């Protein structure tokens, strides 16, 4: 979901880049990425403890005690990051500084169908996306909800005695199965889906830098987020510093674009 004032604004650069992500969003991505790596590296040897490499990784990190400490510390920071993210979001939405651009809508389902029809060659019509397309929303909600499952089951596993004092004991092995599988799924989604979309896809290859630089080119905006581009032109007060020539171009495009 958007951070304060994160609806696309034209950048100051002469190239006409747009600012897509605020510094806080970029920091959040960098943190969640690093924590994800730590959690995977310290988590998978425990899941796949029968494999030879698991013992190798544990030895490399200095023993199981330390692996578990790192895993729990990273999990705690991940929980903190998620909680901060949600808290800031509520604050920003409540104060009107952000719009709920990440909430799935009926259009997202239509877009998915349109895209699949296009991929299958049934239709030549391509979906036109707003600030976040349905794939990005899927990944965002997958991370957030998956994160909730991981944090909740992780806490259950960390404090089994306390949990069993007011909940059935069987929840603990169930939490272990869920934690282990949810973690595997998150890893696979990142490896398969995120790496494809951010690196290997012909549209992103070799590296979609926008989450690190915060910027996206006009070309990509037109192609990947046409509705957002239109929206940024409509709300003229947000398009601070846009060169007037480009402004003109936008207006003309907007006129041509079918109503999304």
């Amino acid at each position, binding site marked *: 979901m958007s951070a304060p004032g994160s609806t696309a604004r034209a950048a100051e650069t002469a190239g006409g880049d747009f600012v897509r992500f605020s510094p806080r969003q970029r920091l959040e991505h960098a943190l969640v990425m690093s924590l994800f790596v730590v959690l995977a590296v310290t988590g998978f040897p425990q899941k796949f403890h029968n494999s030879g490499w698991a*013992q190798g990784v544990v030895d490399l990190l200095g023993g199981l005690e330390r*692996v578990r400490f790192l895993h729990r510390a990273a999990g705690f920071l991940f929980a903190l990051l998620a909680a901060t993210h949600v808290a800031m979001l509520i604050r920003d939405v409540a104060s009107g500084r952000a719009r709920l651009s990440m909430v799935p809508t009926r259009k997202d389902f239509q877009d998915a169908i349109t895209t699949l029809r296009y991929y299958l060659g049934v239709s030549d019509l391509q979906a036109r996306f707003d600030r976040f397309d349905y794939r990005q929303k899927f990944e965002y909600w997958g991370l957030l909800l998956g994160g909730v499952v991981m944090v909740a089951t992780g806490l259950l596993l960390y404090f089994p*005695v306390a949990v*069993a*004092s007011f909940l059935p004991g069987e929840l*603990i*092995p169930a939490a272990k*199965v869920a934690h282990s599988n949810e973690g595997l799924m998150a890893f696979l989604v990142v490896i398969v889906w995120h790496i494809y979309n951010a690196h290997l896809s012909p549209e992103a290859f070799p590296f979609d830098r926008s989450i690190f630089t915060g910027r996206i080119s006009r070309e990509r905006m037109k192609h990947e987020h046409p509705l957002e581009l239109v929206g940024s032109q409509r709300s003229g007060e947000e398009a601070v510093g846009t060169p007037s020539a480009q402004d003109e171009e936008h207006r003309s495009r907007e006129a041509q674009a079918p109503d999304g």
Partner: protein
Amino acid sequence: MVPPLKPRTGGTAGALAVLATLFLAATNFAEAALGAAPGPPQAETDDCLSCHGDQGLAAGKPGPGSRSLFVDGQAFADSVHGRDLRCTDCHPGMAEVPHPPRPHRTEAERRAGSREACKACHFENYRQSFDSVHQRVLARGDVHAPSCVDCHGSHTTVPAAQPRSAISRTCAACHRGISDAYANSVHGRALLETENADVPVCTDCHRGHAIADPRVENWLLRTPELCSGCHADPARMSRYGLSTAVSQTYLADFHGMTASLSRGKGEEAPRITALCIDCHGVHDITKVKDPASPVLKANLVKTCRKCHEGATESFPAAWLSHYEPSWQKAPLVHGVKVFYGLFIPFVIGGLALQILLHLWRVVVNR
């Protein structure tokens, strides 16, 4: 034959011993003079027994410190070595009479040195005995530490495991308390009452010669592997209607995972994670259905509390009692497992399919 000696009767013992050796020297001389070959073992044995067959023959000053030098000729003849070994095979240099002085200075040294006699034939066991926890005690100069002969006997050596219960009885000579606990355990009772060949005797777990210190971490961490040696063996377990899944279900659980990923140190570790023995007991192990069993449902929470302080009555349900989760046993755990078994392929398959379709479209567009 020599007249009976009375070496323990006081100050005359030394003089009598000298007389005896002189006598032996004389008979040896006579034998040599008559051109007698070393002869069969029996002949040498008879020679030695002419002195050592005397029940009263002893070394050292009379009293508690004295050590009997008596050898029961008949027992030796009946022993595994009686037919093939001559005395000097194990007691080299002792053909000389009077016997040359022995190299050891202390009783502990003498006991440690006695192993050298076995070395020539039993080299592998000799070598392993240096890795034994008994060796460490011996090296400290403790005269109670056993050497080969303390377990196997010296002149009365019989095959070690005939019957198997003899092994446990041998250890019991020193390890009284443990032996009593074992004798009342499910394993010990089966062994001592029926000579059951499936149950472990001491050496099956502790090994015979390279007996490790069972209190150190890296030995403790091996206990699941040790128990699995029998408890994962279908042939053996089927005879008693016991599950062979105990090992694998343990290893799949948090405790088992902790044990298999922990590297043991050669130090004493009071508690690493729950190993087989932490819940089931060690030497006092009982059937799981025994009312006194620490893993019986009624006793389980108490057992959990050994590590999990403050565990409540619902806590033991966190452990699936070596059952594989199923709709009957642990339906919640099984349900979560089934859910992810379907959900992960669905999600990842769907995403992979979309990627492939995308790539296909890109190729078609070109």
